[in-house]
């Protein structure tokens, strides 16, 4: 029996989520000054010790990462890549077809690749990805409504976002060949992980 893509807790942060990285060093204002308030050191408010600033939970993107992401994205046909990524999701992980019972013929890889609804939906999904790339510093806000939609109306297990993200990276690799360097891949693996996390954030 093949190993399903089960969620195993890793040593690398919470399941499905990136480890928050402070943008410019520790943002736990006051904490660095010591937890033990001595007499006369009263300038730091005790409450400030316990509240991280919003930036401490934001994902940090280096200039290089942003550049690697943008340079690949600039050369991507959203329609083609989107269609291909979604088609591959349905082919490589056939159980994902459960969400698309009204898409018509999904009976073979050829049928899936040629299916106009798959192509259209793939384009829609990747267009939304483009929005993420324009708003790397506010992914949570960008995906807030979509997250609620995927939970409340579409009932999609967030694991599917991770599967699609990995597939997208493989599609880009096939498309760009050697230009899809290890640095490029690392930036994009981070991006798809963070997008998946943002999409899962409003689940309840």
């Amino acid at each position: 029996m093949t190993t399903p893509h089960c969620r195993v807790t890793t040593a690398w942060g919470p399941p499905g989520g990136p480890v928050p990285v402070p943008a410019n060093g520790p943002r736990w204002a006051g904490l660095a000054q010591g937890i033990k308030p001595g007499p006369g050191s009263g300038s730091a408010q005790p409450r400030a010790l316990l509240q991280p600033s919003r930036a401490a939970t934001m994902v940090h993107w280096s200039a290089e990462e942003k550049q690697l992401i943008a340079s690949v994205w600039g050369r991507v046909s959203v329609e083609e890549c989107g269609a291909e990524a979604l088609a591959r999701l349905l082919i490589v992980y056939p159980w994902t077809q459960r969400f698309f019972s009204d898409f018509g013929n999904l009976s073979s890889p050829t049928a899936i690749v040629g299916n106009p609804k798959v192509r259209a939906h793939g384009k829609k999904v990747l267009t939304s990805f483009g929005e993420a790339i324009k708003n790397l510093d506010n992914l949570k806000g960008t995906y807030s409504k979509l997250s609620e939609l995927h939970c409340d109306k579409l009932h999609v297990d967030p694991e599917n976002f991770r599967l699609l993200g990995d597939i997208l990276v493989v599609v880009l690799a096939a498309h760009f060949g050697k230009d899809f360097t290890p640095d490029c891949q690392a930036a994009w693996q981070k991006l798809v992980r963070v997008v998946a996390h943002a999409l899962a954030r409003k689940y309840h």
Partner: protein
Amino acid sequence: MLTGEDKKLLQQTWGKLGGAEEEVGADALWRMFHSYPPTKTYFPHFDMSQGSDQVRGHGKKVMAALSNAVKNLDNLSQALSELSNLHAYNLRVDPVNFKFLSQCLQVTLATRLGKEYSPEVHSAVDKFMSAVASVLAEKYR
């Protein structure tokens, strides 16, 4: 489960590597260390600089094992039995990492094969790596 078609595609795909197994293995490993930094925790003794001999050497070893598996798709459990013991009792690599290697190997193959890394090949390789991971983790507990 690997179908007859999957097996054929796997053998064809490996055939296309034309002796570049060492390079493919090294590239996949390097990508894995780069995209999934925690995987480096299993190699604290390695020189992790680009082009490191240790990374190349280990990549070659990993690929050789996978190539052997591709030659023995009808009996993966037996072909990988020793490696399964090794991973269960010595290496004890958390199985989640097998997925990371699978992803990076697929990216490496895709960069080399381009359009030839078709959805069908993609599916076969993904299933294969999943089966290999299963066998390697079989004796963990």
